[in-house]
């Protein structure tokens, strides 16, 4: 067994025993279920409103417009998942990434690992691959709950293309969560204190989710928690055109929500992405950048520190 495999197995075993991780994962799973319910409930309500409105149109001899919820893809039922992955999913990934290095440091085992015949790169590989698997587990959990919901609902019929899009959506969610998990590994490896290791990735996540979109034209921060409002077009103004051009390529949360909406079929017609860089490229660049940050953090990790006072 290679050193990185041993480290990965050990990291995953330690994660599996942590109550905090179990709680965060349970919260995530519960909210995936909630999002499935919300999608179903809200769609049924709009259906019922439409039925009620149809009577009125017919009674008044007016033409009946088409039902707005049947216009989109059935996958759009799960649109809240985009939001929950960007909130709880990303936060869970931060907690997992943070614990990867912090657990070793707090236990005081870093000097013991550092004195073993292995390279820092092995340490980095072990931790990053453990994160990838753990976050993969979260994405798979969301995928299973989402797929089961769609399979159970009687009025929803998915074709092979839809299933493929759903799989692509969860892969995208995995990539998004991984980005924050990697930032957390890098930050906790570099941080001088336990708190800073948790705070740095959290602040990056908060800024990208709630502040950055305000700069590129999605003015209200609470738009970030509504899958539809998150896709509002920017006001027509030179300033917003300029800010979208300059800052859009760095707006990771918007890129993810845009791609998610595109895959799940609820992207408003004709809405352009923020900035000139395609959203998928934005996501890939962020993931690569955060991967490098995590790698650098692990390579430069001070193995002499450890214990509760570290």
């Amino acid at each position, binding site marked *: 067994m290679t050193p990185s495999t041993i480290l990965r197995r050990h990291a995953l075993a330690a994660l599996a025993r942590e109550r905090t991780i179990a709680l965060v994962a349970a919260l995530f799973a519960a909210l995936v279920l909630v999002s499935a319910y919300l999608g179903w409930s809200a769609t049924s309500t709009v259906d019922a409103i439409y039925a009620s409105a149809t009577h009125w149109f017919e009674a008044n001899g007016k033409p009946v417009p088409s039902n707005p919820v049947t216009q989109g893809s059935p996958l759009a039922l799960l649109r809240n998942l985009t939001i929950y992955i960007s909130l709880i999913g990303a936060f869970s990934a931060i907690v997992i990434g943070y614990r990867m290095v912090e657990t070793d440091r707090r236990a005081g085992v870093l000097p013991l690992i550092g004195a073993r015949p292995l390279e820092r790169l092995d340490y980095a590989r072990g931790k990053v691959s453990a994160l990838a698997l753990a976050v993969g587990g979260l994405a798979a959990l969301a995928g299973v709950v989402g797929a089961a919901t769609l399979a159970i609902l009687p009025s929803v019929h998915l074709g092979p293309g839809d299933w493929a899009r759903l799989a692509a959506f969860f892969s995208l969610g995995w990539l998004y969560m991984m980005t924050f998990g990697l930032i957390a590994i890098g930050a906790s490896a570099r941080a001088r204190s336990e708190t800073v290791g948790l705070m740095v990735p959290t602040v990056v996540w*908060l800024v990208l989710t709630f502040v950055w979109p305000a700069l590129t034209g999605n003015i209200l921060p609470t738009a970030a928690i509504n899958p539809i409002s998150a896709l509002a077009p920017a006001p027509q103004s030179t300033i917003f055109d300029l800010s979208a051009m300059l800052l859009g390529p760095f707006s990771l949360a918007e890129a993810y929500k845009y791609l998610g909406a595109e895959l799940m079929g609820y992207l408003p017609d004709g809405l352009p992405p923020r900035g000139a860089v395609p959203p998928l490229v934005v996501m890939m660049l962020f993931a690569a950048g955060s991967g490098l940050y995590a790698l650098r953090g692990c390579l430069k990790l001070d193995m002499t520190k450890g214990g509760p006072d570290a």
Partner: protein
Amino acid sequence: MPDLSAIPTIALKDARIALRDRFLLAATLALVAAALISLITGTVAMRTDVATYMAAKQQLLALGKSLGSIAAPEFYPLKLMRGTIEQIEIMGAVIALIAGYRAAVEERGRQTLALILTRPLSNWQFLAAKLLGGAGLMATALAFVFALCAVVLALGSGIGIGANDLLRLAITWGASTLYLSAIFAVGFGLSLWLKSPASGLLYAFALWLLVVLVAPQIGDTMDPDNQVAGGVFAQLSIPKAEQTRIKQGFATYETIRNGIEVSSVTKHYERFTFAVLGIKDIYTGKALGPIWADKKGDAWFLILFTLGLGGLVLLRPIRADRLTKET
């Protein structure tokens, strides 16, 4: 009459440390920045509306037509505070949680708690001092935010703001202080009670996600009008009277939706401040008297929630033996 001099002593010590603590300063600046970004982008968006209106007006006048066909945008400077309030709801809450965590970690596990608790003061006085110190900190940071917002509104809106607007901003500052003090108490309490302060912070974040984001999010998402871009009624072009009739058929659903929303203190804070500042259209331009009559329930919820949480932190005994161990 017990000697309460320990309370200001500890609160002032906390204030001194907070002033020297670069992290907290950075966090306050982050709140100011987030609030101002929202305010300034809101102002830009409003100016864009004004420019569009003026251009349309010029065009109509040039064509010799009446202005009745285009609606003039409303110019209420305080409406621009919406983004700022939302930033306080979200980012402000995070900063308050971290401040609470730091207030606990500052004493816990570093023996200063042992040094304080072997002094002639009751344990509740120590807790009260920490809570008051936190509330003072939040009040000061928010005072900066609101003072800057007032300046930006006066200069940027192009209309200026009057004494009544300032009063409304002051009321909002008070409500914001209460809201963030409650969140501070959560961060402080959990970081003090749980196995390690970092676990406390983590659980506080999880609670923040549920209370500040998820509960309002569920309520917001269950609103049928938010399920269709532009709103379901608008898309179906249903007249107002018919909308009301249809909505009556969904009273139970709406009650559940509202119930989920109001389980979150954030929503009460938002409803109260949106009314006071006239952000919600039905309160725009209304006097404070009728607004209070309408929204006093939200205000009382906010006050009692904050006092209740503070009381909970005060009443829970400190496990000094555990908290003074190195963690």
